[in-house]
């Protein structure tokens, strides 16, 4: 009796082992086959995204790989070290891409990428993630509206601090009526990241 049971139990176990070995083999093969293409396509995707913030014709380095790590700073709202991408042309840093966090969105944090050149001018801003009300606050996405392009080429020296606000508050930025919290948050965080870039110019832009 006991022997029968043992036999049955061990046979099921053996079958399981055989099938899992087969599956593992299949997985290993496909893993090795797709490994390089996956890496390439991931890098390509990241580059495409970063190119929205800094046009690709401005730099000649491998943007995805060329980063420096910075510590937490209230101006960019990060809570742990993050990487800042640096765009170089002829071995000169011409612009950086900073990931900033606006903590005061309508329903939580808004993460953006801000591209800033060495003259404290914004090259481009894109939203990475947000939780704003669909249809109300989500016009900060490039897929939904062109609003985010308002930031292009804006800089600290051409505008007073007061102008870094929505029109309703006497500022320079357009907004969708009824939803002012979201643009306010993005404007504020972008403004602060400019301040950050200015303060840390040496570190960010020197090799």
């Amino acid at each position, binding site marked *: 009796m006991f022997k029968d049971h043992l036999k049955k139990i061990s046979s099921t176990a053996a079958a399981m082992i055989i099938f899992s070995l087969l599956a593992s083999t299949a997985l290993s093969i496909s893993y090795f086959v797709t490994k390089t293409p996956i890496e390439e396509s991931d890098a390509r995707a990241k580059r495409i995204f970063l190119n929205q913030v800094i046009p690709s014709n401005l730099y000649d380095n491998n943007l995805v790989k060329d980063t420096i790590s910075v510590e937490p700073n209230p101006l960019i709202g990060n809570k742990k070290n993050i990487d800042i991408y640096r765009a170089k042309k002829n071995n000169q840093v011409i612009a950086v891409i900073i990931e900033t966090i606006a903590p005061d969105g309508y329903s939580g944090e808004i993460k953006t990428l801000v591209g800033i050149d060495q003259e404290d001018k914004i090259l481009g801003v894109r939203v990475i993630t947000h939780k704003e009300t*669909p*249809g109300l606050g989500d016009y900060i996405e490039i897929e939904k509206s062109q609003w985010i392009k308002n930031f292009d080429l804006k800089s600290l020296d051409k505008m007073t601090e007061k102008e870094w606000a929505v029109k309703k508050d006497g500022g320079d930025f357009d907004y*969708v*009526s*009824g939803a002012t*919290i979201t643009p306010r948050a993005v404007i504020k965080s972008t403004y602060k990241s400019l301040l950050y870039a200015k303060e840390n110019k040496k570190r960010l832009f020197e090799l």
Partner: protein
Amino acid sequence: MDNRSPYIVDAPSVSVIMFKVLLALIPGIALYVYAFGLGVIVNITLASLTVVLTESAILAIRKLPIKPFILDGSGLVTAWLLALSIPSIAPWWIIVLGTLLCIIFGKHVYGGLGYNLFNPAMVGYAILLISFPSIMTHWQIPTNLMENHVEWLDQIKIIMNSHLLSKETIDAMSSATPLDYIKTQLTLNQPLNIIQQNKIFGFLGGSGLELVNLGYLAGGLYLLKDKIISWHLPVSFLTTLFFTALIFNSFSPDTFASPLFHVMSGGSILCAFFIITDPVSAPTTPKGKIYFGVAIALLVFIIRIFGGYPEGIAFAVLFMNIFAPLIDSLTQPRIFGHK
């Protein structure tokens, strides 16, 4: 042979009940017109027309008699409640679409009068709010606060042709509701007493809105007196809302509005007497009604303070509607002769 005892009845018909509810809404509507102009009347008219036409069409499709079901008045109650829930300057198609949604998705997909799981008006309202958040948060400011005087004809024009108006014009005559305003200003770390200095606040709730709410209150008391609704729902809802707000307010008066403000602003009064008292989608046992009212009040408070929307009545009511059958089955009263 028709062995149908009892042979005598003494009850107001469904129509009478529903028309009394409509009657009870009139003081609130009158004050609405007084404070905000005729926009709401346009909306009510549009909603009523839509409801009659749509419901007739659906009843015809379903091969049901049209007259008794139109005259039962339940469709009109839904239409009026929806019209009172949306901003009075919303474009005309909002109320028409909303009423359509109420009648189709709130009522007839479940089988029509008496079978709907959810409060039909709130179904329509929630769909509108989710789908058109921008329009649904543009509330008209009371006429006496407007910088340029608005004739009633202008209001109709706005409702009928809102897409022709510039954003500035709309902004000039609309604002967030007091609840919404508090919520957004609080995120900017403003203390409450500064926030409430804005002109849109009145002595109890929102300027103008508090008057309308008093009108609803009068209508609600009439319904209570006439035994159209039972006391359990409004009392449990309002006291829970009041005391929850009181507790939070006493801990931190700078971030939590006063209990009276919570009761007198937003749709609290309308909700207490007209929305949660919809018999079809609410529990039927006395105890169940109390639990229902308490739960909705807590949810409303939670959504108002912590949620993504400034007002939580529609979602709270819809959410609790799901539980109404469960509440009913758990709160069966003790039967005569049972332990």
